[in-house]
């Protein structure tokens, strides 16, 4: 509802960010929140569309117009209830989601004009935490059914919370030392500080979810046994097999998958003791291959470590600066040029680059060789465009191929053509085994993960209670 004509009166306000020049000096979150009055302006701008495309743009189906309006009216207490109706962890999405809702906002028909939905979202949940409105909501009645959830990423957590609230006894198995999955170990603190994750984990625990950290199902615990001990099992292990770069020199030292680097950085920031041979960007020429969010996070970390230079290269060509209406018309997610937060902090980027070789000395990478390509599949290289760049750390952030297969094998779960767990309605081929999140749909956004967890929980509950 908002305020009539407010969308003409006020413009879009992006979230405030700390100065890129100074924020690279620390690991604290760099995105702030708008002051209340500006948030309310954004709430006011929301037009109570007859067809709120934002809501269809949002994988969770967040009731965006409803809570935009509540924020406009300074009724955060009700807003958090509406927000929690569809989203278990708004503080994750409010920080990490690329906000397809905003791309689909009706005001975005005038590009760049969308309501700052994500800001509103995160402000609601932040306020709710501050006010102490978010409390454990343990179920009134226990069903006595048990569920094992493997993986404590956002999908696993959402699934666990929903199932627990339905009265089932839920145990979450996590191979890492703490919960949260990639939100905890993949995403840098400067995007989401880890106490934010911890706080939510505490809520789940207080509601009655059991967490077993450091237990790698399939290794520490036999998968079949686990299945036998529980009425249902949910696989929410993510899509963690990274895409590799098959070029000469790949085997050289200093060439790492992005996630190895990010895990280490996150652990370091959390104060864990450094591993024996840490991956460090300090003082190095860093090349990040892959133009996505993971790549950006590598860039951001490299800056903070004090890299000599950071260059991010991308296989595909440079997208147009504005929404290409022929390819991705509104309200679709626009394939257009975006500059990541990390590149605002420094570094170079280049598009349509095919890496041809890595070379080095003493088994350690020193250069990267590339050519320009056509920018479109099959990315044929252009003649006479070969270049060589110094590279002491090469991070491969080219996406993920699918879930790790061993556990799925052990559970007897069939796979689809892309090696994901084949579970069109969340139930897999193995009786009582369900799959959710990236393990089912392949790599995707945190918002999809939460949605998967919720949907899967619904199916599990239906299956358990008939």
């Amino acid at each position, binding site marked *: 509802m908002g305020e009539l004509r407010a969308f*003409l009166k006020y413009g879009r306000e992006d979230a405030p960010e700390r100065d890129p020049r100074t924020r690279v000096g620390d690991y604290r979150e760099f995105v702030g929140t708008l002051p209340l009055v500006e948030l309310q302006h954004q709430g006011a701008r929301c037009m109570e*569309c*007859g*067809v709120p495309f934002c809501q269809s743009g949002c994988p969770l189906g967040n009731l965006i117009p409803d809570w935009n309006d509540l924020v406009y009216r300074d009724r955060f207490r009700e807003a958090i209830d509406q927000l929690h109706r569809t989203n278990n962890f708004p503080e994750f999405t409010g920080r990490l989601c690329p906000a397809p809702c905003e791309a689909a906002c009706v005001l975005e028909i005038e590009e760049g004009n969308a309501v700052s939905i994500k800001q509103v979202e995160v402000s609601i949940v932040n306020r709710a935490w501050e006010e102490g409105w978010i409390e454990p909501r343990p179920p009134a009645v226990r069903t006595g059914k048990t569920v094992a959830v493997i993986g404590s990423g956002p999908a696993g957590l959402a699934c666990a919370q929903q199932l627990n609230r339905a009265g089932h006894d839920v145990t979450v198995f996590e191979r890492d030392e703490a919960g949260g999955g990639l939100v905890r170990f993949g995403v840098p603190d400067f995007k989401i500080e880890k106490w934010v994750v911890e706080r939510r984990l505490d809520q789940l625990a207080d509601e009655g979810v059991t967490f077993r950290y450091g237990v790698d199902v399939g290794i520490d615990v036999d998968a079949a046994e686990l299945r036998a001990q529980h009425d249902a099992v949910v696989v929410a292990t993510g899509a963690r097999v990274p895409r590799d770069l098959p070029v000469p020199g790949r085997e050289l030292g200093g060439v790492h998958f992005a996630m190895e680097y990010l895990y280490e950085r996150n652990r370091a920031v959390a104060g864990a003791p450094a591993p024996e041979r840490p991956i460090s960007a300090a003082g190095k020429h860093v090349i990040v291959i892959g133009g996505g969010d993971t790549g950006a996070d590598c860039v951001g970390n490299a800056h903070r470590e004090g890299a000599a230079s950071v260059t991010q290269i991308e296989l595909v060509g440079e997208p147009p600066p504005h929404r290409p*209406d022929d390819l991705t018309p509104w309200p679709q997610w626009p394939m257009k040029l975006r500059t990541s937060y990390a590149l605002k902090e420094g570094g170079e980027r280049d598009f349509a680059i095919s890496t041809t070789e890595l070379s080095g000395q003493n088994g350690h990478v020193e250069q990267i060789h590339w050519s320009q390509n056509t920018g479109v599949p099959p990315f044929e290289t252009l003649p006479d465009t070969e270049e060589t760049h110094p590279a002491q750390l090469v991070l491969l952030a080219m996406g993920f191929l699918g879930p790790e297969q061993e556990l799925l094998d052990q559970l007897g779960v069939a796979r689809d053509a892309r090696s994901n767990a084949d579970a069109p309605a969340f139930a897999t081929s193995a009786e009582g085994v369900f799959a959710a999140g990236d393990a089912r749909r392949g790599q995707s956004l945190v918002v999809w993960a939460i949605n998967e967890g919720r949907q899967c929980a619904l199916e599990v509950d239906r299956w358990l209670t008939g």
Partner: protein
Amino acid sequence: MPIGLYDPAFEHDACGITLIARLDGIPTHETVRRGLTAVANLEHRGAAGADARTGDGAGILLQMPDRFVRSFVEGLPPAGQYGVGVCFLPQDEARRAELERLLAETVEAEGQTVLAWRDVPVDDRHVGIDAGQVAPRIRHLVIGASPELAADPDAFERKLYVIRRVAELAAGPDLVLPSFSSRTLVYKGMLTAPQLPGYYPDLRDERVETAMALVHSRYSTNTFPSWELAHPYRMICHNGEINTLRGNVNWMRARESQLASDLFGDDLAKVLPVIRPGGSDTGNFDNVLELLALAGRTLPHAIMMMIPEAYQGRDDLPDYLKGFYAYHQCLMEAWDGPAAIAFMDGRVAGATLDRNGLRPGRWLETKDGWVVLASETGVLDIPPENVLRKGRLQPGKLFVVDLDRGRIVEDEEIKREVATRKPYAEWYEQEVVRSSDLPEREPAERPSESLRNRQLAFGYSQEDMKVILAPLARQAEEAVGSMGNDSPLAVLSDRKPLLYSYFKQLFAQVTNPPVDSIREAVVMSVQASVGSERNLLDETPEHARQLVIDNPILLDSELERLRQVDSEVFQSRTLDITWPVAEGPAGLEPAIERLCREAEAALADGINILILSDRAVGPERVHIPSALAVAAVHHHLVREGTRLQAGLILETGEARSVHSVAVLVGYGAAAVNPYLMLETLAELVDRGDLPEGMTREEAQKRAVKGIAKALLKTMSKMGISTIPSYCGAQIFEAIGLAPELVERHFTGTSSRVGGIGIETIAEETLARHARAYPGDPEGLLVVGLFAWRRGGEHHQWNPETIALLQHAVREGGWETYEQYAQTVNDDSARKRTIRGLLQFRFAGDGGIPLEEVEPAKEIVKRFVTGAMSLGSLSREAHETLAIAMNRIGGRSNTGEGGEDPARYVRDANGDSRRSSIKQVASGRFGVNIEYLTNADELQIKMAQGAKPGEGGQLPGHKVDGYIANVRLTTPGVGLISPPPHHDIYSIEDLKQLIYDLRCANPEARISVKLVAEVGVGTVAAGVAKANADHVLISGHDGGTGASPLSSILFAGIPWEIGLAETQQTLVLNDLRSRIWVQTDGQLKTGRDVVIAALLGADEMGFATAPLIATGCIMMRACHLNTCPVGVATQDPELRARFKGQPEHVVNFFFYVAEEARQIMARLGIARFEDLVGRVDLLEADQAMEHWRSRGIDLSNVLYRPEVTNGAPRRRTEAQTSPLPGALDWELIERSKAAIEDGTPVAGSVEVRNVNRAVGGLLSHELTKKYGRTGLPDGTIRFDLHGSAGQSFGAWLAPGIELTLYGDTNDYTGKGLSGGTIAVRPPEAATFAAEENVIIGNTVLYGAISGHAFFRGLAGERFAVRNSGANAVVEGVGDHGCEYMTGGRVVVLGPTGRNFAAGMSGGIAYVLDPDGSFPARCNPELVELEELEESDVEAIRTLVERHLELTASPVAARVLDEWESCLPQFAKVMPRDYKRALAAMDNGGYAAGDDHPISSGGEGFLTTESEGARAAV
């Protein structure tokens, strides 16, 4: 018996009526002759069917022609001691003999004697073929009175009635007894009026003599043969429609068990039921009137009971009369509707008019003692010098000719006589109890179930709170939405809506007008009453023992007063309407049975207030849906005959919207206490959802007020004015309920596609209940009914379909369109539309190659875009649609808002922005002769899908300079579209408007837009017979305009049903061949188009889809002027955002046509026209499990009527033009010089009432040549002599001046476009013109400019919706200057009530010497002011001109006594107009710089009409 979707019960009729009498009371044959002449002159009001010689009916009611009867019966006893029964008998000899035997035996059994049988001679040469085939054998039965009755003529008359009823009941429908009396005799048949004397030679026999006669010419909406339905009936003939009939019939049935009469004694039981089944509304009315009169009331008394005038809140009526009406309302609810009823019992004759004056009636008394009353003036040639006086029937007034007294008895006199016969007023005051006078009571302690749980149990949603309730309390009126309804029918919804949602509100279209409940509030009332009714045939003080409630929505405290009423007269009992959850769905039926038994028992105990309560809902108990509870009890008690012993009150947590209350009242509740809604409102206050400072009580009162107001609007849609008339009237059609359920509990309601039964209702109620207990942590449901929500109610227009369509017409091309079409079509099937449940029967041989199918460029010519006005759409969007449609040879529609003449000229690139279809809607904005002349099609909008039966309003601040220009009004002045066309209150009026429009543009085809509802097929048949070329059947779900939410959702039905009914009815009547049929309503794809064609449409209309192609994203904020894509806004900043291009629309239509071609190929049909009406190519999709499980049965929709003579199923021929013979051809001929080069011409012609729309064709010719500017004033001058027909001077163009010496009828000066009209009495007349009526009702309707001068009195609604004409008149009836927006009106005489209602512009000057005018002026929008200099000037100029053109003595006197007269003028000045004029003086508009009042983030906006200002 219904055939397919057609049901004869939906037939309507309207007519021309005449009453003629000699005041000396001497029977003469001359009376017959004059009566027949008069009705023949009303022939244009009647109609004929496919066989032009078969009339809809004509007849005459006479006094018993004693001399004549004596001629064929020997030994006839003296007059009064014998009776004649007119018998329509079957042609079948055996059956006839049987019936005659039955009649004879009955006569004997009742102690009377059969004196003779006579074959009534008839002449078959004077009857149409169709009518002749079904003509009855007509015989007279002459009955002699027994010796004891011979002395008591009244008793004999009663006995004849008893004999008739007994025989009728024994015989069944094939015995028809048109009259059976010792006093009157009827001749009637399925004839045209001129055929009447030819068919019945008796009527030419000089011995057939009478002193009074009623004569009638009928116009029925269809032509199914019926001789019985011709008028007159035994006591009345009728022009109009009784809207409340279903309720009246039910209540009458309920009353029967209480009837007792000393006069009838034991005979009374023999005549029951009083109402003969299968009769028309007139027949039913006649049945009841006859009973009342025979049981001892005088005819005027009975008429005053049945059609009371609007008496509530009147200061101008004497107390005894108000008391009379109030008393009689306790005996019987009003029979409400637009009705002119002429009645006669052989001694007294007369006529009356409904409370709102919606039918015409003009009378004349001659110096030689004749009285003629007719639908029109001029039906008889009476020399002017013989005219004593002239008048008209007035709203609610009685006109009585009493032969005993030998004179006309004035309304006041006759009513005083009747109303003071007994001390009715005292009885009433002494006995009636007003609920507000009852002592306050504390409610009993209640278990405190949590509010949230109960809300869940009753299915409350977040939307109920936010969209329905909060705005209701905030604005004290119902919220408004836009863009129609694209969600599924209740029966097809996954959401399992409340039972109310299955009932669709009916609304008036064509056959009767809706009422404007706001501007004509003087006729509306929400007062209700409860208590026991008593014997209708008796009158005692105790009859008035009723408990009067001010408003049918009760606060808790008000209910407690009734519950704990403590008196010997009133006793209440509360019945529980819940059942144990533990019993499951099977518990519902027994619970209803138990409830009905308890109700019965309560009545037996003398209880007269029954409160049905679901307060007991809790963890263990679930409620019977309240509509089911009330309807079940109501019908059970009606069947038991005890219904009238008690009033029903609902105490329910379920009701929470206007529609829910309407359903409950419509099925018999006298009042509703929506306690949970009230509690919820309190919650909203506590939560801060309502404006600060509003208390709980205030919020509740405002909501009640808002619902009451909207309830009035819901009633008024059907033309019903009072709660007692609406109560139990069942003005609904059920869609999706099983026939057995409806038959049992909602008896008499139409339900034509089957649906869910009681079991499913129980399951769904339990499912809701299950969410409440133990409780749902998520809280209230998110339903997504008014705005799409993920996982909520399905909407056909959703993010996916909108995005696909927009992409398809821009970049995506055919492939994307295919995706779109597949999504929509699949969705339509899965997600629930009627068409989604159908599938094609493709050709077994694979069909024909695609190349053989008619090309898309031909098919697109059948497509039109919807009627969306400039004003609702931006100029950019409106012109884009027009250009696109002109490019493809389709048609775009102006909508109700005129058109910029700049668009009549082609653009440089060859594009045309001119809309082919020019709409003519009730507001007539921009409808001048130039607009009409520049049309290919003229569309009369009877209703619109989003809000059928309602008007509209464009607030002044939205009327900027451009829009005002186009609409030919004043910038800044608000524009109101009245609910009805004030020139269409019935079908024969529509015929007249069609005629008028043909005159204004003979080349254009004339279309009538209807909205689907039960009975639309018969209306369409009437439209075909009214000479229209084209009829549009609009679905309920389309509609882009702003409209109250309940109307968007609950008025009208899907086009599939309406179209199928129309096709079936037209084919059955053999009328389909002469009319095009178009349909619209959420059409989206080629599949939709083909289905529409197969169901009977030649053409298809689209509104939302092409708008979406241009960029509309279904914001549903059209009413807020904030459309962010520039489609539906006038804001220049937003208009600049419009990105639509004509090619987007062109692409859409070509894709749709291409998809249709592919289907045609598979059907094996090459030409589109061969699809039309091929319903055999459709079948119900048996694979659709979900709908079969819900009991849907589409066989009625798929019914294909068998026709014997190969009647066409599509349009094959043109209508016969009514224009040859028009007087205008002569005027055109004589104006040639002027038309050619502007040479002035003048002339004089004779004119008669059959010459209608005089000046129309001439104006068209002139406009074709000279455009809107026409010729200089007075270039063409004609003097006319005589009585002119209706619509005299319609759309008269500038340069034409018509002076009529005589008088004229309704609609004079309609749409006056710059010409000048003067009407004055003939030179020879001796009566005082200023005291006599000279023009009819609804004069200068929608006049744009020009001048009019009337020396004499006008009828109701003078200068209604006048936009700019200047006029002088010497007195007007009720509702003068209603909805006026411009121009000057000078009234030099008396006015009726409600002057200036809805008047937003222009100025009226009323000469008011006695200072009584202010009391008759409606101050809502206007103020009374002192004259200023410019006013004095304006009045003087107009009055001088009046004198010049009409030689008016009144004008002369005013000018003579100028100085003393001036202070007597009241200046009526609209506030809007004053503001606008002031703004213009300051060089700007009042409009454009401000915006609609903001809801300030407080929910859906409602129009800033009265409610926003009103305090509680």
